């Protein structure tokens, strides 16, 4: 009775993982921003969050000014905003609903309860005093999902697609974080070398849960170059772009050989190319030539890889508009850059 995984399920499980990963990253970024990203006068620049996700247009249709309150509401509770935590978790829950024949009951129940809890939140739950606890609970719920999945999900073809989704989303999120923060955090004259400047860089690391790992590696000072190098090229840090791509590459190779699949060659070539790109230059060279263009190139590669998966495994047509396929999977959850 065992047969190859339904193409639609592969698509759906890939996006389930991406949606949860996205929610977790967003919670991390908002949390750290709230806590640590203050300049010497104690001000925060909440606009940078909106820029991070290229959401300026949609955000300013709803809000006149990027106040803390408005940005938090937009990214946590606003179900109409496709890049909010609520939307990511709702999409993950819808993915899980479609995948119920495939995933474990525990995976479904955890996501169902998680979504119902988020959906019941109201504006006053975003009061300054409780924010840290809220973000922690979201982060933990996402990590619980990962743990429940690790412990209960049957290891067949779908497991590979799940993990590939998680790593490609994580790589993407890390590049976004670095892209926007790097420019924002380039030191202004008055702040150079000051305690405030250092706290910005450590906040960036904390967003990616990399502060302590970084400290172990670099006992001397935190410099922009080192932080960027760590997040992009480190081979051991679980959220670095290089590690995510290595994992992805290994998963794809194993999936293809274990199940003798015909598809996936184009994605494998694309990931090889991207890994070569990462290995080709030192972080100093990358920064010298321009970090933004470099990150842009990585992101375009990531999109290309996803598109290869869509065509080879998920049953999409090469030139087809995304709208013609399964409802909540790709198109409504894809970041603006993929649409």
């Amino acid at each position, binding site marked *: 009775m065992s047969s*190859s995984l*339904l193409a639609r399920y592969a698509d759906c499980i890939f996006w389930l993982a991406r949606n949860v990963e996205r929610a977790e990253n967003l919670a991390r970024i908002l949390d750290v921003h709230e806590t640590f990203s203050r300049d010497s006068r104690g001000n925060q620049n909440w606009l940078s969050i909106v820029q991070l996700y290229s959401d300026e247009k949609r955000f300013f249709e709803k809000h006149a000014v990027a106040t803390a309150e408005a940005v938090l509401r937009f990214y946590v509770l606003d179900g109409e905003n496709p890049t909010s935590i609520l939307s990511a978790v709702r999409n993950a829950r819808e993915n899980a609903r479609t995948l119920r024949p495939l995933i474990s009951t525990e995976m*479904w129940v955890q996501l169902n309860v998680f979504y119902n809890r988020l959906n019941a939140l109201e504006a006053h739950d975003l009061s300054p005093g409780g924010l840290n606890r809220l973000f922690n609970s979201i982060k933990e719920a996402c990590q619980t999902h990962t743990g429940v999945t690790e412990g209960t999900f049957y290891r067949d073809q779908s497991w590979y697609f799940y993990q590939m989704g998680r790593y490609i989303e994580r790589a993407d999120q890390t590049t976004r974080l670095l892209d926007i923060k790097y420019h924002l955090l380039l030191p202004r004259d008055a702040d150079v070398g000051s305690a405030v400047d250092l706290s910005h860089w450590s906040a960036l690391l904390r967003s990616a849960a990399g502060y302590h790992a970084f400290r172990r590696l670099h006992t001397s000072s935190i410099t922009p170059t080192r932080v960027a190098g760590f997040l992009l090229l480190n081979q051991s840090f679980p959220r670095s772009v290089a590690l995510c791509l290595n994992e992805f590459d290994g998963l794809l190779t194993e999936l293809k050989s274990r199940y003798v699949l015909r598809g996936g060659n184009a994605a494998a070539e694309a990931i090889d190319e991207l890994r070569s790109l990462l290995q080709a230059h030192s972080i100093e060279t990358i920064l010298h030539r321009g970090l933004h263009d470099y990150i842009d190139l990585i992101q375009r590669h990531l999109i290309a890889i996803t598109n290869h998966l869509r065509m080879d495994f998920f049953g999409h047509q090469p030139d087809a508009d995304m709208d013609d396929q399964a409802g909540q999977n790709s198109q409504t959850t894809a970041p603006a850059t993929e649409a």
Partner: protein
Amino acid sequence: MTDERTDSVLDGYVPGEFYCEMLRNPEADKVRERLAKLSITELRRRATDAESELYNLGITFTVYSDNLAIDRILPFDVIPRVIAAKEWALIEAGVIQRVAAINELLHDLYHDQNLLKDGIIPAELLLGNANYRPLMQGVDLPYRSYVNICGTDLVRNAEGGFMVLEDNARTPSGVSYVIENRHLMQRAFPDLLTDIGIRPVDNYGFKLVQAMREIAPKGIEEPQVVLLSPGTYNSAYFEHVFLAREMGIPLVEGHDLVIRDDRVYMRTIDGLTRIDVIYRRLNDEFLDPEAFRPDSMLGVRGLMRAYKAGNVALANAIGTGVADDKAVYAYMPRIIKYYLAEEPILPNVETHICREPDALKYTLDHLDELVVKPVGEAGGYGITIGPRATKEELEDCRTKLLADPSNYISQPTISLSVSPTLIGNAVEPRHVDLRPFAITGEKTWVLPGGLSRVALRKGSLIVNSSQGGGSKDTWVLE
């Protein structure tokens, strides 16, 4: 006695003139004694836990209202409905007989039509039926099994006799609740279940997939079975998921399937995989835009060609809706005698077919005593219950009857049996019915018990989930 917390469950429970499933059943003694040891508060606490579990598990059905889709849990009553072994033996035999007669009827209708030649039933009732499918004419099915999954709705009258209220021979739903209700009871009331000796229900998925393999096209060693669902927005999606899991088969939607050379394939990550049997939870008219409704987005273009070529089995077969028509129902006792030369084991409820002038006249004359039902509707919609109706409702019913008599049947009101049911913080009698599920491949097997639906509104006779009904765990004793 005013302190509610010390009241035990059945204190103050008075079923009145109705037949009570709990008090009138001597074999339920043990269950009754154990319930008596529980306080209402304890029962309420466990019921509340069970409800929140249902919500967390997402065991829901979807109700559509003003274009809004709302996920609701089917209300679950924790006091079980107990059926004695002897009573069950009768029900089981009656259901098997009924399914056999329905399958014979369909085989005959789609082949020689002897039934019509012998004048057992008016030809236009079958041939003019909206669910009659001419394309099935001459199609041979393994074991003549048209209705592989059948739900037979039974009620119990004031004397305690079971009667058939209607047959569901298309895509009967509700079996997932039978099994989930049992699991819920096992978790919430282990102390109530221990040593009672209850027939298990959790091999339903296994029996179903076994029957699906039996009806596969000949010569296929390991048939690939799938469940075809309309998708996540269907009100019964939870059940589709449940059954696919219990059967260990893929749950597919129309666009996952494709027809090539009159064979069915599903799209996988490694290309197309051949499909041999489809348990479809989609009505005939949506299955294939080429053969039926051209606007259906849910089906598979060309599926009927593959079906007629004998390259795929469908469960239930196409065109079974003729058999569960409410007007055809009236002829079932005669149909049973005609094909099986047996008396019906389970009687019908007396039925007046309003297309017949005498029956129409009788119905109009006794409108305030009768239940009038449209023949085409399911889900308890459009029913007028004479004794409960207002003058305006009766007049409205009369107008509709006169405008289109053949769309209606009428039946006497049955004094349905009741079962003790937790309502708020009290236990009160509520009317129940029973839907056993029969699976037919080579032979027919009946799941012990079935879905006991309970009308939660006081005095209400309508048990449908879409009309405020709930369900109970049904214990068939060994």
